[in-house]
């Protein structure tokens, strides 16, 4: 090994949740990070480069875990990466174990398991300031001896001790040593049974398991190790495993035995080296908690925060969204001026530019929501929000962690589905994602406003404006439908043990602006990279369906009209009308409208005519499109709200009946309330859940519900 060679090595950063891993990772890697997913699972993969004095180290930031008893996908990934050399192409040279000084007892539980992995380790002690607040005393040098590893004290948030850690990493890699600390002893019976099982496994071939992995298979009932064991050894394996557990029938269970053994080991390691006052010191964090989880004040603060967040997503993003739409519209006109009339121009202006604008317009809402979510997570409040809302969400079949994602769904489903990654339990996460689209998002509002404004009379019912009441009903409709949907999901597609809510409430801390902004930026970027392309593709497909065949006969017909008007020196308004009529004729002749007219009979029972059907079809990629599509179909050039309202009211069937009445308006609104008409939502749901079957399921069940709902409303409404 020459000194000029830059050696690369790989270390994994492990630790409990809420110990400052992200801050430490950022402090070590700076901006040299990439975020992705572990192949085949929706677990975030974070790898960064650390430049130490002697080398560049690749650092894998593993998800925070309390124990290596893998039940959830996160834990399964961590166990694979740590226990199987080369899993996910990440062979490790050592571990950086981050410990919370104020919580050392519980943190060392994981440490005791990591020791068994026989990897060189360096221990990092963070949050010494919190420990000090709690009047905890730690003798670091002695602790280092007890743990058999170098202990580096850092303050990840303040970025102190980082250089020392880098040096320690170099030392670790230069002289890799295993910790001489004694491992927890599980007793002779356990060890011999485990050895017997290992021998049995060796005799049957296949992947070789380490002692630690065999232990996990024995202890974790229903865990990932057991699953892999049965996968490798079949029904015989299941029997053999059960027999081994039977032999070790400890009261009350193997899991209890393990916990007892490990915590006894922890107590022994910490004896004389770590001391906590007998009476817990009341810290500032405790005082804040007393307010924030208070019956009354806690709720007030919670409601206030939620209102603020909602307001932020709704209104603060509006100027930015308007700016983006305006910009792209300008860009479209500008480029359009340079291109000759025709397919290419329409493709570029109405397809590509409008499509890209349609993707970017989501960015402000995503960034704002994640600014809030990251802030609340980093300071420790998110856990309290889940704590406050758990009972309420439990009635609906979910847990408190689903509250914020679902609430933000009322603003926009796209960032909300992304935000549901804070829900660790996969089934709860999926259930939440699948019902978020039922929360009436801001894109539905123009539809509601238009139809309510045009058709619901401004009367007062019991002191409340009927119009406002209708709007409120549309919003709550989604919530009420969501409850039985979750109920059904949990009993069919997402069947499984209802997970307990065992949630740590971390100490409050000042959120780090770096961490918050970075997480916000990462989400925005992930959306653009992963969803942007597909959404754009869908926008272009829909553009094509609404543009082609674009027959020249239509153009010729209107060209004649226009020429006549020009000869007669008619007003600009008259010519504009011809332009609008021409646009309408093109769309009416398009494949999209032809399809709309073809399936029209299916929607007749809902009280719709072909224009409504076509408009609804056109709005499947994005709801707001119905406004402009209807505008075009009614030959209204600029789709101003008032002119559209008039057009709707004046619309007649061939037999003279008005197309729109209250039941029709309601049926359209109910359809919009319950239908998933948003390509972006589907794409994001697919990415976040890791499979296209979930957005497919969401789309299907919601379309069915929307159809049935609209049908029921129209049929009942017209009989009243």
């Amino acid at each position, binding site marked *: 090994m020459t000194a000029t060679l830059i050696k690369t090595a790989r270390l994994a950063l492990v630790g409990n949740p809420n110990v400052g891993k992200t801050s430490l990772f950022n402090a070590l890697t700076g901006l040299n990070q990439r975020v992705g997913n572990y192949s085949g699972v929706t677990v975030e993969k974070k790898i960064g480069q650390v430049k130490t004095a002697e080398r560049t180290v690749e650092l894998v930031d593993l998800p925070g875990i*309390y*124990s290596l*008893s893998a*039940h959830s996908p996160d834990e399964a990934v961590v166990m694979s990466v740590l226990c199987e050399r080369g899993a996910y192409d990440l062979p490790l040279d050592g571990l950086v174990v981050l410990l919370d000084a*104020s*919580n050392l*007892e*519980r943190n060392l*539980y994981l440490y005791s398991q990591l020791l068994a992995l026989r990897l060189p380790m360096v221990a990092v002690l963070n949050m010494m300031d919190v420990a000090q607040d*709690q009047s*905890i005393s730690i003798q670091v040098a002695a602790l280092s001896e007890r743990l058999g590893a170098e202990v580096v004290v850092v303050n990840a948030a303040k970025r102190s001790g980082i250089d020392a850690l880098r040096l320690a990493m170099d030392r670790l890699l230069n002289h890799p040593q295993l910790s001489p600390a004694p491992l927890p002893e599980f007793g002779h019976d356990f060890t011999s049974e485990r050895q017997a099982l290992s021998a049995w496994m060796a005799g049957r071939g296949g992947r070789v398991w380490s002692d630690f992995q065999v232990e996990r298979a024995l202890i*974790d*009932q*229903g865990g990932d190790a057991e699953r892999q064991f049965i996968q490798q050894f079949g029904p015989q394996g299941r029997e053999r495993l059960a027999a081994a557990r039977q032999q070790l029938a400890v009261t*009350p*269970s193997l*899991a*209890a035995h*393990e*916990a*007892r053994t490990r*915590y006894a080991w922890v107590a022994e390691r910490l004896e004389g080296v770590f001391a*906590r006052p007998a009476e*817990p010191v009341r810290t500032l964090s405790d005082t804040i*908690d007393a307010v924030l*989880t*208070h*019956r*009354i004040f*806690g*709720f007030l603060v919670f409601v206030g925060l939620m209102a603020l967040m909602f307001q932020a997503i709704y209104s603060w993003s509006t100027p930015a969204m308007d700016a983006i739409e305006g910009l792209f519209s300008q860009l479209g006109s500008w480029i359009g001026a340079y291109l000759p009339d025709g397919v290419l121009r329409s493709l570029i202006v109405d397809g590509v530019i409008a499509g890209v604008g349609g993707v970017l317009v989501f960015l402000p809402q995503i960034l704002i929501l994640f600014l809030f979510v990251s802030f609340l997570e980093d300071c420790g409040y998110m*856990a309290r929000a*889940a*704590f*406050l*809302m*758990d*009972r*309420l969400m*439990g009635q609906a079949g979910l847990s*408190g962690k689903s509250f914020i994602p679902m609430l933000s769904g009322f603003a926009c489903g796209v960032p909300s589905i992304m935000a549901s990654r804070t829900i660790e339990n996969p089934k709860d996460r999926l259930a939440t994602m699948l019902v978020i689209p039922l929360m009436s998002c801001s894109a539905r509002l123009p539809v509601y406003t238009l139809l309510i404004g045009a058709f619901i009379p401004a009367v007062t019912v019991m002191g409340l404006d009927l119009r406002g009441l209708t709007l409120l009903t549309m919003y709550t409709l989604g919530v009420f439908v969501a409850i039985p949907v979750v109920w059904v999901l949990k009993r069919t597609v997402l069947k499984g*043990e209802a*997970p*307990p*809510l*065992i*949630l*740590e*409430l*971390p100490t409050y801390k000042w959120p780090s602006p770096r961490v918050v902004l970075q997480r916000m930026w990462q989400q925005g970027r992930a959306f653009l990279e992963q969803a942007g392309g597909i959404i754009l593709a869908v926008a272009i497909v829909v553009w094509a369906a609404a543009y082609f065949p674009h027959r020249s006969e239509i153009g010729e017909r209107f060209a004649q009209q226009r020429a006549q008007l020009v000869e007669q020196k008619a007003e600009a308004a008259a010519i504009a009308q011809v332009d609008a009529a021409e646009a309408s004729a093109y769309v009416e002749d398009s494949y999209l409208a032809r399809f709309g007219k073809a399936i029209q009979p299916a929607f007749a029972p809902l009280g719709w005519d072909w224009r409504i059907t076509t408009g609804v079809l056109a709005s499947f990629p994005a709801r707001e499109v119905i406004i402009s599509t209807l505008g075009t179909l009614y030959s209204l050039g600029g789709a101003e709200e008032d002119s559209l309202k008039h057009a709707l009211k004046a619309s007649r069937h061939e037999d003279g009946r008005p197309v729109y009445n209250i039941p029709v308006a309601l049926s359209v609104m109910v359809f919009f309330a319950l239908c998933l008409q948003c390509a972006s939502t589907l794409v994001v749901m697919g990415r976040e859940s890791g499979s296209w079957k979930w957005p497919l399921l969401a789309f299907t069940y919601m379309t069915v519900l929307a159809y049935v709902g609209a049908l029921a409303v129209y049929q009942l409404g017209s009989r009243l």
Partner: protein
Amino acid sequence: MIKALFQARDHFQGRSCSLADLRPGQRAIVTSVTGSGLATQRLYEMGILEGTEVTMVRVAPLGDPLEIRLMGYLLSLRKAEAAMIQVASP
């Protein structure tokens, strides 16, 4: 009121009750944890074992879940899980 009397009697007679029965501010020692599923394993891993001292901190405003302090950190549990944890006065 009656329940409180019975609880007081239980405590006086050294009988245990569950974590779910504790009042805010009360301290107790875990005597046993029932159940054998995933939830129980999680409880053990988080440190809720025979002999661990826990303090009941508060109940959420809506009545569930509970918040307890143990080993210097705060843990939130539903009453359903707390009922599986038998405790006795220290």
